[in-house]
């Protein structure tokens, strides 16, 4: 009994020692460069990992509610790195942290403004008329809207855990959203605090997310004195935990008018899937999506249930469309063990034949100018806050 007690205390003590001198847990370390900025939005280009990447560039659009670097959390858990290694030319939008001046930004500004300008920039750099749009979570919903409004600019559409049908009782957020008076929230806050949304996410499973997660961390700490690798493993455990912890609570505030419209038109009225959602002055008609579509879901997604994503395939007019469901969760699909083993390879497998230009060979050299090695040397290693 006494021994068991000592081991538990030792785990706690070792864990605390690591926290007192925390290891470097940088996130988003894949080499990249910022190629375009507009207000707080930055368009990031990752330095290709191969000499001749696939011709059609991939633009990743992440959600507004968290930071994009979950897709590049650490080198061995990076969707971005995997796509680069598979030979793709990858871009991503960093939405930044909205402040008071962004309060009045609407979905129109995000979709027809920022995303459209990012797409145009990539088109200009690549010299192509169309690119691949890869939307993730809420970014996937925005990508679907964009693809419907500007189909002539999109060659392939990939959506990853993206909701389009909001009329479901499977996810807690869908149930709660119906009862929220979003006007009062936006009218009071203006810019809706990230912490407000975080409180909602934590409430989906309060005991596991606010207690058990932290107990679990110390449970994982090892105390084998005769194993030389033990300290390294402990350090890795703490680093992995802190990276995820940083991402979870690194929540940007939300532009009020966008939040209002997203909640009312999507969560409360479910207009998108009904082809009744108006962005700017145009009604979004999902039938205008005729390009190849890959719709990827996580079977145990508690935030975006499959019922919210599946209807997309029936709503579009694409003849080339596929749906993939992986036995993982909403975050696991980016950073879980299956992500690198199954999810990314399957997406790449689908994307590769569709990223070839007709009659122009399989790949194109990366943009001329600096040599690749030089570009890599000069690029920023996008460490998003060292600690």
């Amino acid at each position, binding site marked *: *009994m006494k021994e*068991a*007690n000592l081991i*538990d205390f030792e785990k706690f003590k070792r864990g605390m020692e690591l926290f007192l001198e925390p290891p470097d847990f940088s996130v988003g370390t894949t080499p990249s460069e910022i190629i375009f900025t507009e*207000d707080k939005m930055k368009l990031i280009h990752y330095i290709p990992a191969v000499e001749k990447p696939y011709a059609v560039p991939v633009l990743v659009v992440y959600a507004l509610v968290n930071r994009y670097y979950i897709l590049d959390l650490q080198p061995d858990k990076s969707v971005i790195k995997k796509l680069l290694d598979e030979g793709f030319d990858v871009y991503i939008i960093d939405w930044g942290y909205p402040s*008071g*001046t962004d*309060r*009045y*930004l609407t979905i129109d*500004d995000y979709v027809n*403004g920022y995303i459209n300008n990012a797409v145009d920039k990539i088109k200009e750099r690549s010299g192509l008329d169309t690119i691949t749009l890869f939307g993730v979570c809420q970014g996937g919903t925005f990508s679907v809207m964009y693809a419907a409004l500007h189909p002539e600019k999109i060659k392939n559409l990939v959506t990853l855990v993206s909701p389009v049908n909001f009329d479901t009782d499977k996810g*807690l957020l869908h*149930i*709660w959203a*119906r*009862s*929220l*008076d979003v006007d*009062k*929230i936006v*009218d*009071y806050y*203006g810019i809706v605090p990230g912490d407000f949304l975080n409180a909602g996410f934590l*409430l*989906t*499973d*309060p*005991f*596991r997310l606010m*207690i*058990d997660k932290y*107990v679990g961390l110390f449970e994982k700490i090892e105390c084998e004195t005769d194993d030389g690798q033990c300290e390294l493993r402990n350090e890795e455990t703490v680093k992995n935990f802190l990276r995820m912890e940083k991402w979870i609570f690194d929540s940007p505030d939300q532009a009020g008018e966008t939040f209002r419209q997203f909640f009312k038109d999507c969560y409360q009225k479910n207009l998108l899937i009904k082809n009744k959602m108006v962005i700017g002055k145009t009604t979004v008609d999902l039938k205008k999506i005729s390009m190849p579509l890959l719709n990827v879901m996580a079977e145990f997604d508690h935030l975006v249930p499959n019922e919210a994503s599946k209807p997309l395939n029936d709503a579009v007019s694409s003849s080339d469309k596929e749906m993939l469901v992986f036995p993982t969760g909403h975050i696991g699909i980016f950073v879980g063990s299956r992500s690198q083993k199954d999810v990314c390879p399957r997406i790449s497998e689908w994307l590769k034949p569709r990223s070839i230009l007709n009659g122009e060979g399989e790949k194109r050299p990366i943009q001329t100018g600096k040599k690749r090695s030089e570009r890599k040397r000069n690029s920023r290693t996008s460490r998003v806050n060292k600690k």
Partner: protein
Amino acid sequence: MEKSNFESTQEIFDMWLKTYEATFGRIVEMPAMGPTRERSEKMMKGFSLFAELSSTWMDSNVNFQSVFMEAMRRVREKTANEMEGEINPEKYKEFYRIWIETYSETFKEFLKSGHFASDMGKFMSYFMEFQKFNREMLEENYLKPMNLPTKTEIDEINKELYSLKKKVKELDRVIKELSLTNPSNKDEIL
């Protein structure tokens, strides 16, 4: 679910609320008079907003308390069935596992219910209204007399800035389009 002891607190609160509504609540809702009429009426609204907020808070709390009681009852039942014999640290771990699993499951059932969604919706609505009222009072009674900028004024500037930026972006786009369609006029257009 078991009746929570907190319901007695709610009974007392309900009594207080009824008395308040019949007495003080009526006084604060009387039309104000005199030079400070407008300001006084606005300020008095705070009392009824607070009473409404407290009332929804009480409803949510009673429901939460009932779920806690139910979770506790389930833990008691499970531990009685699953844990026997001497208490040692391993047993504590087992107790923790049962506790966290039972509480998580019980609360998930509650959080999924329309009841919780509606309670939370009401509470948030009154809370936001009350906060907005407090800010307006702060602006009216402190910031404006001190000649300090208010959130309302900053929002107005932000809105103006947003419209201007949007207009500039639109003009930029038009200029770019024109210069593309007729490159010889580019300098003239710019």
